Protein backbone atom coordinates (compact mmCIF):
# COMPACT_ATOMS: atom_id res chain seq x y z
CA UNK A 1 0.00 0.00 0.00
CA UNK A 2 1.13 3.53 -0.73
CA UNK A 3 0.56 6.50 1.51
CA UNK A 4 0.22 9.62 -0.62
CA UNK A 5 0.53 13.20 0.59
CA UNK A 6 -0.25 15.83 -1.99
CA UNK A 7 0.84 19.42 -1.44
CA UNK A 8 -2.27 21.58 -1.83
CA UNK A 9 -0.68 25.02 -1.67
CA UNK A 10 2.79 26.46 -1.64
CA UNK A 11 3.90 27.70 1.77
CA UNK A 12 4.66 31.42 2.04
CA UNK A 13 7.90 30.60 3.84
CA UNK A 14 9.80 27.31 3.95
CA UNK A 15 7.81 24.62 5.67
CA UNK A 16 9.77 22.61 8.26
CA UNK A 17 8.45 19.09 7.79
CA UNK A 18 10.79 16.56 9.36
CA UNK A 19 7.77 14.42 10.21
CA UNK A 20 7.56 13.43 6.54
CA UNK A 21 9.51 10.20 6.96
CA UNK A 22 8.08 6.69 6.58
CA UNK A 23 9.03 5.78 10.15
CA UNK A 24 6.87 8.49 11.69
CA UNK A 25 4.06 8.42 9.18
CA UNK A 26 3.59 4.65 9.42
CA UNK A 27 3.17 4.79 13.20
CA UNK A 28 0.90 7.81 13.32
CA UNK A 29 -2.77 7.41 14.24
CA UNK A 30 -3.70 10.68 12.61
CA UNK A 31 -1.22 11.73 9.98
CA UNK A 32 -3.07 14.93 9.26
CA UNK A 33 -2.60 16.07 12.84
CA UNK A 34 1.19 15.70 12.87
CA UNK A 35 2.95 19.02 13.43
CA UNK A 36 4.94 20.97 10.87
CA UNK A 37 6.36 24.47 11.18
CA UNK A 38 5.34 27.21 8.82
CA UNK A 39 7.86 29.89 9.75
CA UNK A 40 7.32 30.35 13.48
CA UNK A 41 3.80 29.02 13.31
CA UNK A 42 3.05 25.44 14.33
CA UNK A 43 0.53 23.97 11.91
CA UNK A 44 -0.81 20.53 10.95
CA UNK A 45 0.24 18.33 8.07
CA UNK A 46 -3.26 18.49 6.65
CA UNK A 47 -3.08 22.27 6.58
CA UNK A 48 -0.83 21.84 3.57
CA UNK A 49 -1.20 18.23 2.41
CA UNK A 50 -4.06 16.04 1.33
CA UNK A 51 -3.53 12.59 2.82
CA UNK A 52 -4.67 9.31 1.26
CA UNK A 53 -3.78 5.65 1.63
CA UNK A 54 -1.58 3.92 4.22
CA UNK A 55 1.71 2.07 4.50
CA UNK A 56 5.44 2.69 4.71
CA UNK A 57 5.74 3.26 0.96
CA UNK A 58 5.23 7.01 1.05
CA UNK A 59 4.71 9.27 -1.95
CA UNK A 60 4.84 13.05 -1.70
CA UNK A 61 3.33 14.86 -4.67
CA UNK A 62 3.71 18.45 -5.75
CA UNK A 63 6.52 20.98 -5.81
CA UNK A 64 8.20 20.50 -2.44
CA UNK A 65 11.11 22.83 -3.14
CA UNK A 66 9.99 24.98 -0.18
CA UNK A 67 9.52 22.05 2.17
CA UNK A 68 12.56 21.36 4.35
CA UNK A 69 13.66 18.16 5.97
CA UNK A 70 11.74 15.56 4.02
CA UNK A 71 13.06 12.12 4.93
CA UNK A 72 15.37 13.44 7.66
CA UNK A 73 16.73 10.57 9.72
CA UNK A 74 14.56 7.93 8.04
CA UNK A 75 15.58 4.38 8.90
CA UNK A 76 13.44 2.18 6.68
CA UNK A 77 10.76 2.07 4.04
CA UNK A 78 10.54 3.90 0.76
CA UNK A 79 9.86 7.57 0.27
CA UNK A 80 9.29 9.14 -3.13
CA UNK A 81 9.13 12.85 -3.81
CA UNK A 82 7.32 13.19 -7.10
CA UNK A 83 8.82 16.55 -7.92
CA UNK A 84 11.44 18.86 -6.46
CA UNK A 85 12.52 18.53 -2.84
CA UNK A 86 13.63 21.33 -0.57
CA UNK A 87 16.72 21.63 1.60
CA UNK A 88 17.96 18.82 3.85
CA UNK A 89 16.07 16.10 2.03
CA UNK A 90 17.34 12.78 3.39
CA UNK A 91 19.76 14.47 5.78
CA UNK A 92 20.91 12.08 8.47
CA UNK A 93 18.99 9.16 6.97
CA UNK A 94 20.05 5.75 8.26
CA UNK A 95 18.19 3.34 6.05
CA UNK A 96 15.50 2.84 3.47
CA UNK A 97 15.21 4.39 0.03
CA UNK A 98 14.47 8.00 -0.76
CA UNK A 99 13.78 8.94 -4.37
CA UNK A 100 13.52 12.52 -5.53
CA UNK A 101 12.12 12.66 -9.03
CA UNK A 102 13.02 16.31 -9.52
CA UNK A 103 15.81 18.47 -8.08
CA UNK A 104 16.97 18.44 -4.48
CA UNK A 105 17.89 21.53 -2.46
CA UNK A 106 21.01 22.23 -0.42
CA UNK A 107 22.22 19.78 2.21
CA UNK A 108 20.60 16.76 0.59
CA UNK A 109 21.83 13.66 2.41
CA UNK A 110 24.04 15.70 4.73
CA UNK A 111 25.28 13.62 7.63
CA UNK A 112 23.72 10.51 6.12
CA UNK A 113 24.48 7.20 7.91
CA UNK A 114 22.88 4.61 5.65
CA UNK A 115 20.25 3.85 3.06
CA UNK A 116 19.97 5.12 -0.49
CA UNK A 117 19.13 8.60 -1.72
CA UNK A 118 18.45 8.97 -5.43
CA UNK A 119 17.93 12.35 -7.08
CA UNK A 120 16.76 12.17 -10.68
CA UNK A 121 17.47 15.86 -11.24
CA UNK A 122 20.27 17.94 -9.76
CA UNK A 123 21.27 18.62 -6.19
CA UNK A 124 22.24 21.88 -4.54
CA UNK A 125 25.22 22.68 -2.35
CA UNK A 126 26.53 20.49 0.47
CA UNK A 127 25.31 17.23 -1.05
CA UNK A 128 26.12 14.56 1.55
CA UNK A 129 27.91 17.33 3.35
CA UNK A 130 28.93 18.12 6.88
CA UNK A 131 26.77 20.17 9.21
CA UNK A 132 28.45 23.21 10.75
CA UNK A 133 30.29 22.33 13.92
CA UNK A 134 30.74 18.67 13.00
CA UNK A 135 33.92 17.09 11.69
CA UNK A 136 32.39 14.22 9.73
CA UNK A 137 29.68 14.49 7.15
CA UNK A 138 28.18 11.48 5.46
CA UNK A 139 29.09 8.25 7.30
CA UNK A 140 27.43 5.58 5.22
CA UNK A 141 24.91 4.79 2.52
CA UNK A 142 24.70 5.77 -1.11
CA UNK A 143 23.70 8.98 -2.84
CA UNK A 144 23.06 8.91 -6.57
CA UNK A 145 22.38 12.17 -8.39
CA UNK A 146 21.57 11.91 -12.06
CA UNK A 147 22.12 15.58 -12.80
CA UNK A 148 24.70 17.99 -11.38
CA UNK A 149 25.67 18.78 -7.80
CA UNK A 150 26.61 22.11 -6.25
CA UNK A 151 29.59 23.23 -4.23
CA UNK A 152 31.08 21.28 -1.35
CA UNK A 153 29.55 17.96 -2.24
CA UNK A 154 30.96 15.29 0.04
CA UNK A 155 32.55 17.74 2.43
CA UNK A 156 33.70 15.87 5.51
CA UNK A 157 32.75 12.55 3.91
CA UNK A 158 33.78 9.69 6.20
CA UNK A 159 32.21 6.62 4.58
CA UNK A 160 29.82 5.79 1.81
CA UNK A 161 29.40 6.61 -1.84
CA UNK A 162 28.29 9.78 -3.57
CA UNK A 163 27.82 9.50 -7.33
CA UNK A 164 26.90 12.36 -9.60
CA UNK A 165 25.97 11.81 -13.22
CA UNK A 166 26.94 15.31 -14.26
CA UNK A 167 29.29 17.97 -12.96
CA UNK A 168 30.15 18.77 -9.36
CA UNK A 169 30.81 22.28 -8.08
CA UNK A 170 33.69 23.79 -6.14
CA UNK A 171 35.52 22.11 -3.28
CA UNK A 172 34.10 18.62 -3.72
CA UNK A 173 35.30 16.38 -0.92
CA UNK A 174 36.44 19.33 1.16
CA UNK A 175 38.26 17.97 4.24
CA UNK A 176 36.91 14.51 3.51
CA UNK A 177 38.06 11.71 5.78
CA UNK A 178 37.37 8.65 3.63
CA UNK A 179 34.66 7.34 1.34
CA UNK A 180 34.18 7.81 -2.37
CA UNK A 181 32.75 10.53 -4.58
CA UNK A 182 32.38 9.79 -8.29
CA UNK A 183 31.57 12.49 -10.83
CA UNK A 184 30.77 11.25 -14.30
CA UNK A 185 31.26 14.85 -15.37
CA UNK A 186 33.82 17.29 -14.05
CA UNK A 187 34.95 18.45 -10.61
CA UNK A 188 35.10 22.15 -9.86
CA UNK A 189 38.13 23.98 -8.46
CA UNK A 190 39.71 23.03 -5.14
CA UNK A 191 38.51 19.45 -5.25
CA UNK A 192 39.78 17.48 -2.28
CA UNK A 193 41.13 20.47 -0.42
CA UNK A 194 42.23 19.28 3.00
CA UNK A 195 41.22 15.67 2.37
CA UNK A 196 42.87 13.02 4.54
CA UNK A 197 41.78 9.77 2.90
CA UNK A 198 39.19 8.65 0.39
CA UNK A 199 38.69 8.85 -3.34
CA UNK A 200 37.47 11.52 -5.70
CA UNK A 201 36.85 10.26 -9.21
CA UNK A 202 36.17 12.34 -12.30
CA UNK A 203 35.75 11.54 -15.95
CA UNK A 204 36.77 15.01 -17.15
CA UNK A 205 40.19 16.66 -17.06
CA UNK A 206 40.85 18.68 -13.93
CA UNK A 207 43.90 20.35 -12.47
CA UNK A 208 44.36 19.22 -8.87
CA UNK A 209 45.54 21.64 -6.21
CA UNK A 210 49.32 22.15 -6.03
CA UNK A 211 49.30 20.19 -2.78
CA UNK A 212 48.42 17.03 -4.71
CA UNK A 213 51.18 14.92 -6.29
CA UNK A 214 50.91 12.76 -9.39
CA UNK A 215 51.54 9.05 -8.72
CA UNK A 216 50.84 7.04 -11.86
CA UNK A 217 48.28 6.15 -14.45
CA UNK A 218 46.60 2.77 -13.95
CA UNK A 219 43.34 0.87 -13.82
CA UNK A 220 42.12 0.91 -10.21
CA UNK A 221 40.53 -2.52 -9.64
CA UNK A 222 38.06 -1.23 -7.07
CA UNK A 223 36.71 1.34 -9.48
CA UNK A 224 35.36 -1.35 -11.77
CA UNK A 225 33.15 -2.55 -8.90
CA UNK A 226 31.95 0.95 -8.17
CA UNK A 227 31.22 1.90 -11.75
CA UNK A 228 29.38 -1.34 -12.43
CA UNK A 229 27.34 -0.71 -9.30
CA UNK A 230 26.52 2.81 -10.48
CA UNK A 231 25.51 1.48 -13.86
CA UNK A 232 23.17 -0.94 -12.09
CA UNK A 233 21.74 2.02 -10.16
CA UNK A 234 20.88 3.72 -13.43
CA UNK A 235 23.76 6.09 -14.13
CA UNK A 236 25.09 6.25 -17.69
CA UNK A 237 28.48 4.67 -17.08
CA UNK A 238 30.28 3.77 -20.29
CA UNK A 239 32.51 0.78 -20.98
CA UNK A 240 35.37 3.21 -21.59
CA UNK A 241 34.97 4.52 -18.07
CA UNK A 242 34.91 1.02 -16.59
CA UNK A 243 37.87 -0.22 -18.61
CA UNK A 244 39.74 3.08 -18.67
CA UNK A 245 43.03 4.17 -17.20
CA UNK A 246 43.05 6.82 -14.50
CA UNK A 247 45.70 9.28 -13.40
CA UNK A 248 46.18 9.02 -9.65
CA UNK A 249 46.95 12.17 -7.73
CA UNK A 250 47.70 11.76 -4.03
CA UNK A 251 46.75 14.39 -1.52
CA UNK A 252 46.09 16.58 0.18
CA UNK A 253 49.71 17.27 1.07
CA UNK A 254 48.64 19.67 3.78
CA UNK A 255 47.05 16.67 5.48
CA UNK A 256 47.99 12.97 5.40
CA UNK A 257 48.32 12.69 1.60
CA UNK A 258 46.42 9.42 1.89
CA UNK A 259 43.55 10.53 -0.31
CA UNK A 260 43.40 10.40 -4.07
CA UNK A 261 41.88 12.07 -7.10
CA UNK A 262 41.44 9.66 -10.00
CA UNK A 263 41.10 11.34 -13.39
CA UNK A 264 40.05 9.35 -16.44
CA UNK A 265 42.65 9.48 -19.19
CA UNK A 266 41.31 10.34 -22.64
CA UNK A 267 41.03 7.14 -24.68
Amino acid at each position, binding site marked *: MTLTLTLREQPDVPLEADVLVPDRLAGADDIGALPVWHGKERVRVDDFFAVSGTGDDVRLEGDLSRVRGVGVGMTAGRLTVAGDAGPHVGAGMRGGELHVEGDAGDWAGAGMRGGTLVVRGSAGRHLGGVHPGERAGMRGGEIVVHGDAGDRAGAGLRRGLIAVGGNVGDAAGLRMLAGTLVALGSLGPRAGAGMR*RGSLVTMAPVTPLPTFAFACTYRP*PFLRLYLR*RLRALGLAVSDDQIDGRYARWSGDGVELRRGEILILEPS
Partner: protein
Amino acid sequence: MKLHGAEIVDTFAEAFPMWGARVVITAATPDWALEAGRSMTGFATSVIGCKCEAGIERELASDETPDGRPGVSALLFAMDREGVGKRLVERVGQCVLTCPTTACFNGLDAEDTVNVGGQLRFFGDGYQASKVLAGRRYWRVPVMEGEFLVEERFGAVKGVAGGNIIMFAGDEERARHAAEAAARAMRGVEGVIMPFPGGIARSGSKVGSRYSALPASTNDVLAPTLRAQVEHTDVPPEVGSVFEIVIDGLALEPVREAMKVGLVAAAEAGASHVTAGNYGGNLGPHHIYLRELVP
Protein backbone atom coordinates in the same frame (compact mmCIF):
# COMPACT_ATOMS: atom_id res chain seq x y z
CA MET B 1 23.54 -54.36 -11.27
CA LYS B 2 24.64 -53.64 -14.84
CA LEU B 3 24.85 -50.26 -16.56
CA HIS B 4 26.11 -50.05 -20.16
CA GLY B 5 27.88 -53.36 -19.57
CA ALA B 6 29.61 -52.20 -16.39
CA GLU B 7 29.00 -53.95 -13.09
CA ILE B 8 27.76 -51.42 -10.55
CA VAL B 9 28.80 -52.81 -7.20
CA ASP B 10 26.14 -52.66 -4.51
CA THR B 11 28.02 -50.52 -2.05
CA PHE B 12 28.20 -46.93 -0.89
CA ALA B 13 30.56 -43.98 -0.72
CA GLU B 14 31.11 -42.73 2.78
CA ALA B 15 31.34 -38.95 2.96
CA PHE B 16 32.02 -36.73 5.92
CA PRO B 17 31.68 -33.04 6.81
CA MET B 18 34.34 -30.52 5.87
CA TRP B 19 34.12 -26.75 5.86
CA GLY B 20 34.27 -25.14 2.46
CA ALA B 21 34.59 -21.74 0.81
CA ARG B 22 34.27 -20.45 -2.73
CA VAL B 23 36.87 -18.04 -4.07
CA VAL B 24 36.25 -16.01 -7.21
CA ILE B 25 39.44 -14.90 -8.92
CA THR B 26 39.32 -12.42 -11.77
CA ALA B 27 42.08 -11.14 -14.01
CA ALA B 28 42.74 -9.15 -17.14
CA THR B 29 42.60 -12.33 -19.24
CA PRO B 30 41.08 -15.78 -18.76
CA ASP B 31 44.57 -17.27 -18.85
CA TRP B 32 45.80 -15.25 -15.89
CA ALA B 33 42.68 -16.02 -13.89
CA LEU B 34 43.19 -19.70 -14.60
CA GLU B 35 46.87 -19.45 -13.74
CA ALA B 36 46.05 -17.96 -10.35
CA GLY B 37 43.31 -20.52 -9.76
CA ARG B 38 45.63 -23.41 -10.55
CA SER B 39 48.31 -21.99 -8.32
CA MET B 40 45.92 -21.42 -5.44
CA THR B 41 44.50 -24.92 -5.66
CA GLY B 42 47.85 -26.64 -6.17
CA PHE B 43 49.15 -29.14 -3.62
CA ALA B 44 45.67 -29.49 -2.18
CA THR B 45 44.72 -33.04 -3.09
CA SER B 46 44.14 -34.49 0.33
CA VAL B 47 43.59 -32.94 3.72
CA ILE B 48 45.83 -35.66 5.16
CA GLY B 49 48.95 -34.32 3.53
CA CYS B 50 48.03 -30.84 2.37
CA LYS B 51 45.93 -29.44 5.24
CA CYS B 52 43.14 -28.72 2.77
CA GLU B 53 41.53 -29.90 -0.43
CA ALA B 54 40.94 -27.46 -3.25
CA GLY B 55 40.18 -27.32 -6.91
CA ILE B 56 38.81 -25.14 -9.67
CA GLU B 57 35.05 -25.37 -9.80
CA ARG B 58 34.67 -23.73 -13.21
CA GLU B 59 35.73 -20.85 -15.39
CA LEU B 60 33.59 -17.73 -15.25
CA ALA B 61 32.59 -15.42 -18.07
CA SER B 62 32.99 -11.68 -17.64
CA ASP B 63 29.32 -11.17 -16.91
CA GLU B 64 29.45 -13.64 -14.02
CA THR B 65 32.10 -11.88 -11.94
CA PRO B 66 31.89 -8.92 -9.57
CA ASP B 67 34.25 -6.73 -11.57
CA GLY B 68 33.20 -7.76 -15.04
CA ARG B 69 36.46 -9.47 -15.93
CA PRO B 70 37.01 -13.12 -16.81
CA GLY B 71 37.59 -15.36 -13.85
CA VAL B 72 37.50 -18.72 -12.18
CA SER B 73 35.75 -19.98 -9.11
CA ALA B 74 37.63 -22.30 -6.83
CA LEU B 75 36.50 -24.28 -3.82
CA LEU B 76 38.65 -24.95 -0.79
CA PHE B 77 37.85 -27.37 2.03
CA ALA B 78 39.40 -27.87 5.46
CA MET B 79 38.43 -29.76 8.58
CA ASP B 80 37.08 -26.72 10.42
CA ARG B 81 36.17 -23.12 9.77
CA GLU B 82 39.39 -21.78 11.25
CA GLY B 83 41.31 -24.07 8.93
CA VAL B 84 39.47 -22.64 5.94
CA GLY B 85 40.47 -19.14 7.02
CA LYS B 86 44.12 -20.03 7.55
CA ARG B 87 44.46 -21.88 4.27
CA LEU B 88 42.75 -19.09 2.36
CA VAL B 89 45.05 -16.47 3.84
CA GLU B 90 48.07 -18.57 2.91
CA ARG B 91 46.95 -19.48 -0.56
CA VAL B 92 45.34 -16.23 -1.64
CA GLY B 93 48.35 -14.41 -0.23
CA GLN B 94 50.95 -16.54 -1.94
CA CYS B 95 49.20 -17.46 -5.17
CA VAL B 96 46.59 -14.81 -6.03
CA LEU B 97 48.04 -11.63 -4.58
CA THR B 98 51.27 -12.42 -6.40
CA CYS B 99 49.69 -13.20 -9.77
CA PRO B 100 49.54 -10.44 -12.40
CA THR B 101 46.29 -8.47 -12.71
CA THR B 102 44.19 -10.58 -10.34
CA ALA B 103 41.50 -9.59 -7.87
CA CYS B 104 39.88 -11.93 -5.37
CA PHE B 105 36.27 -12.06 -4.18
CA ASN B 106 34.09 -14.12 -1.89
CA GLY B 107 31.80 -16.36 -3.91
CA LEU B 108 29.59 -17.70 -1.16
CA ASP B 109 26.86 -16.02 0.83
CA ALA B 110 26.94 -17.71 4.21
CA GLU B 111 26.25 -16.90 7.83
CA ASP B 112 29.72 -17.97 8.88
CA THR B 113 32.63 -16.05 7.46
CA VAL B 114 36.40 -16.04 7.74
CA ASN B 115 38.70 -13.06 7.56
CA VAL B 116 40.92 -13.15 4.48
CA GLY B 117 41.38 -9.68 3.03
CA GLY B 118 41.48 -8.27 6.53
CA GLN B 119 44.66 -10.27 7.10
CA LEU B 120 46.23 -9.85 3.69
CA ARG B 121 45.87 -6.08 3.90
CA PHE B 122 48.90 -5.92 6.16
CA PHE B 123 51.06 -6.67 3.15
CA GLY B 124 50.30 -3.07 2.26
CA ASP B 125 52.49 -1.98 5.19
CA GLY B 126 50.17 0.81 6.17
CA TYR B 127 49.49 2.03 2.62
CA GLN B 128 46.47 -0.26 2.22
CA ALA B 129 43.03 1.28 1.99
CA SER B 130 39.57 -0.15 2.37
CA LYS B 131 36.37 0.44 0.45
CA VAL B 132 32.89 -0.53 1.53
CA LEU B 133 30.39 -1.06 -1.25
CA ALA B 134 26.89 -2.45 -0.81
CA GLY B 135 27.76 -3.68 2.67
CA ARG B 136 30.92 -5.55 1.64
CA ARG B 137 34.39 -4.42 2.58
CA TYR B 138 37.26 -4.67 0.14
CA TRP B 139 40.94 -4.03 0.68
CA ARG B 140 43.16 -2.25 -1.81
CA VAL B 141 46.70 -3.44 -1.37
CA PRO B 142 49.32 -1.49 -3.32
CA VAL B 143 51.74 -3.73 -5.23
CA MET B 144 54.48 -3.20 -7.79
CA GLU B 145 52.13 -3.84 -10.70
CA GLY B 146 49.45 -1.50 -9.38
CA GLU B 147 46.90 -2.64 -6.87
CA PHE B 148 45.53 -5.93 -5.55
CA LEU B 149 41.87 -5.93 -4.58
CA VAL B 150 40.62 -8.55 -2.14
CA GLU B 151 37.36 -8.90 -0.29
CA GLU B 152 37.65 -8.84 3.49
CA ARG B 153 35.44 -11.76 4.49
CA PHE B 154 34.69 -15.03 2.76
CA GLY B 155 31.68 -17.20 3.49
CA ALA B 156 32.26 -20.68 4.89
CA VAL B 157 29.79 -23.54 5.05
CA LYS B 158 29.83 -27.05 6.39
CA GLY B 159 30.18 -29.05 3.19
CA VAL B 160 30.63 -32.69 2.30
CA ALA B 161 33.95 -34.34 1.46
CA GLY B 162 34.92 -37.82 0.51
CA GLY B 163 32.29 -38.59 -2.09
CA ASN B 164 33.91 -41.00 -4.52
CA ILE B 165 33.59 -43.51 -7.28
CA ILE B 166 36.16 -46.15 -8.19
CA MET B 167 36.46 -47.45 -11.73
CA PHE B 168 37.92 -50.80 -12.88
CA ALA B 169 38.92 -51.89 -16.36
CA GLY B 170 41.02 -54.56 -18.01
CA ASP B 171 44.06 -52.37 -18.45
CA GLU B 172 45.36 -48.92 -17.59
CA GLU B 173 44.31 -47.33 -20.90
CA ARG B 174 40.69 -48.41 -20.62
CA ALA B 175 40.44 -47.60 -16.91
CA ARG B 176 41.99 -44.17 -17.44
CA HIS B 177 39.71 -43.51 -20.40
CA ALA B 178 36.68 -44.27 -18.21
CA ALA B 179 37.98 -42.11 -15.37
CA GLU B 180 38.70 -39.22 -17.71
CA ALA B 181 35.16 -39.41 -19.08
CA ALA B 182 33.76 -39.46 -15.56
CA ALA B 183 35.84 -36.48 -14.43
CA ARG B 184 34.84 -34.55 -17.54
CA ALA B 185 31.16 -35.15 -16.84
CA MET B 186 31.53 -34.23 -13.18
CA ARG B 187 33.07 -30.85 -14.02
CA GLY B 188 29.65 -29.78 -15.24
CA VAL B 189 28.20 -30.01 -11.74
CA GLU B 190 28.24 -26.77 -9.80
CA GLY B 191 29.33 -26.78 -6.18
CA VAL B 192 31.85 -29.62 -6.34
CA ILE B 193 35.52 -30.15 -7.02
CA MET B 194 37.65 -33.21 -7.67
CA PRO B 195 40.86 -32.28 -5.85
CA PHE B 196 43.26 -34.82 -7.38
CA PRO B 197 45.28 -34.17 -10.55
CA GLY B 198 42.90 -33.89 -13.44
CA GLY B 199 40.25 -34.94 -10.96
CA ILE B 200 41.60 -38.50 -10.84
CA ALA B 201 43.57 -40.40 -8.19
CA ARG B 202 45.50 -43.52 -9.13
CA SER B 203 46.58 -44.10 -5.55
CA GLY B 204 43.55 -44.50 -3.36
CA SER B 205 44.63 -45.15 0.18
CA LYS B 206 43.59 -47.14 3.18
CA VAL B 207 43.69 -45.83 6.71
CA GLY B 208 46.94 -46.62 8.54
CA SER B 209 50.12 -48.41 7.63
CA ARG B 210 52.50 -51.00 8.94
CA TYR B 211 54.79 -48.01 9.46
CA SER B 212 53.55 -46.19 12.54
CA ALA B 213 54.40 -42.70 11.27
CA LEU B 214 52.05 -42.95 8.30
CA PRO B 215 48.35 -42.18 8.70
CA ALA B 216 47.52 -43.71 5.32
CA SER B 217 49.07 -46.12 2.85
CA THR B 218 48.38 -47.83 -0.44
CA ASN B 219 45.01 -49.47 -0.81
CA ASP B 220 46.42 -52.97 -1.24
CA VAL B 221 43.06 -54.67 -1.73
CA LEU B 222 42.54 -52.55 -4.87
CA ALA B 223 46.09 -52.75 -6.20
CA PRO B 224 46.13 -55.23 -9.12
CA THR B 225 49.84 -55.88 -8.80
CA LEU B 226 49.35 -57.17 -5.27
CA ARG B 227 46.57 -59.58 -6.15
CA ALA B 228 48.85 -62.56 -5.62
CA GLN B 229 50.46 -61.22 -2.46
CA VAL B 230 47.60 -60.15 -0.22
CA GLU B 231 45.25 -62.32 1.80
CA HIS B 232 42.21 -60.59 0.35
CA THR B 233 41.76 -58.64 -2.87
CA ASP B 234 38.80 -56.72 -4.27
CA VAL B 235 40.25 -56.71 -7.77
CA PRO B 236 38.34 -59.12 -10.01
CA PRO B 237 40.46 -61.48 -12.12
CA GLU B 238 39.76 -59.68 -15.41
CA VAL B 239 40.74 -56.25 -14.01
CA GLY B 240 44.18 -54.78 -14.58
CA SER B 241 43.88 -51.19 -13.41
CA VAL B 242 41.80 -49.08 -11.00
CA PHE B 243 41.22 -45.31 -10.68
CA GLU B 244 39.33 -43.29 -8.09
CA ILE B 245 37.64 -39.90 -8.27
CA VAL B 246 37.16 -38.09 -4.97
CA ILE B 247 34.48 -35.39 -4.78
CA ASP B 248 34.15 -32.54 -2.30
CA GLY B 249 31.10 -30.33 -2.38
CA LEU B 250 29.47 -27.41 -0.68
CA ALA B 251 26.48 -29.63 0.11
CA LEU B 252 25.48 -33.29 -0.12
CA GLU B 253 23.25 -33.00 -3.15
CA PRO B 254 25.91 -31.71 -5.59
CA VAL B 255 28.21 -34.52 -4.45
CA ARG B 256 25.49 -37.08 -5.17
CA GLU B 257 24.84 -35.47 -8.53
CA ALA B 258 28.52 -35.53 -9.45
CA MET B 259 28.80 -39.19 -8.46
CA LYS B 260 25.73 -39.95 -10.55
CA VAL B 261 26.94 -38.31 -13.75
CA GLY B 262 30.43 -39.70 -13.20
CA LEU B 263 29.14 -43.21 -12.69
CA VAL B 264 27.12 -43.09 -15.90
CA ALA B 265 29.98 -41.57 -17.88
CA ALA B 266 32.45 -44.16 -16.62
CA ALA B 267 30.11 -46.99 -17.52
CA GLU B 268 29.51 -45.57 -20.98
CA ALA B 269 33.24 -45.11 -21.50
CA GLY B 270 34.06 -48.77 -20.91
CA ALA B 271 34.61 -49.32 -17.20
CA SER B 272 34.14 -52.98 -16.33
CA HIS B 273 33.11 -52.20 -12.76
CA VAL B 274 32.20 -49.10 -10.79
CA THR B 275 32.38 -49.20 -7.04
CA ALA B 276 32.91 -46.77 -4.17
CA GLY B 277 35.06 -46.50 -1.09
CA ASN B 278 33.83 -46.62 2.46
CA TYR B 279 35.00 -47.46 5.92
CA GLY B 280 32.18 -49.71 6.91
CA GLY B 281 30.04 -46.75 7.80
CA ASN B 282 32.23 -45.80 10.74
CA LEU B 283 33.82 -42.63 9.35
CA GLY B 284 31.21 -40.32 7.97
CA PRO B 285 27.50 -39.67 8.35
CA HIS B 286 26.77 -39.44 4.62
CA HIS B 287 26.31 -42.81 2.91
CA ILE B 288 25.74 -42.46 -0.83
CA TYR B 289 24.60 -45.78 -2.31
CA LEU B 290 25.54 -46.42 -5.91
CA ARG B 291 22.31 -48.31 -6.58
CA GLU B 292 20.40 -45.11 -5.88
CA LEU B 293 22.45 -43.28 -8.50
CA VAL B 294 21.86 -45.67 -11.38
CA PRO B 295 19.33 -44.09 -13.75
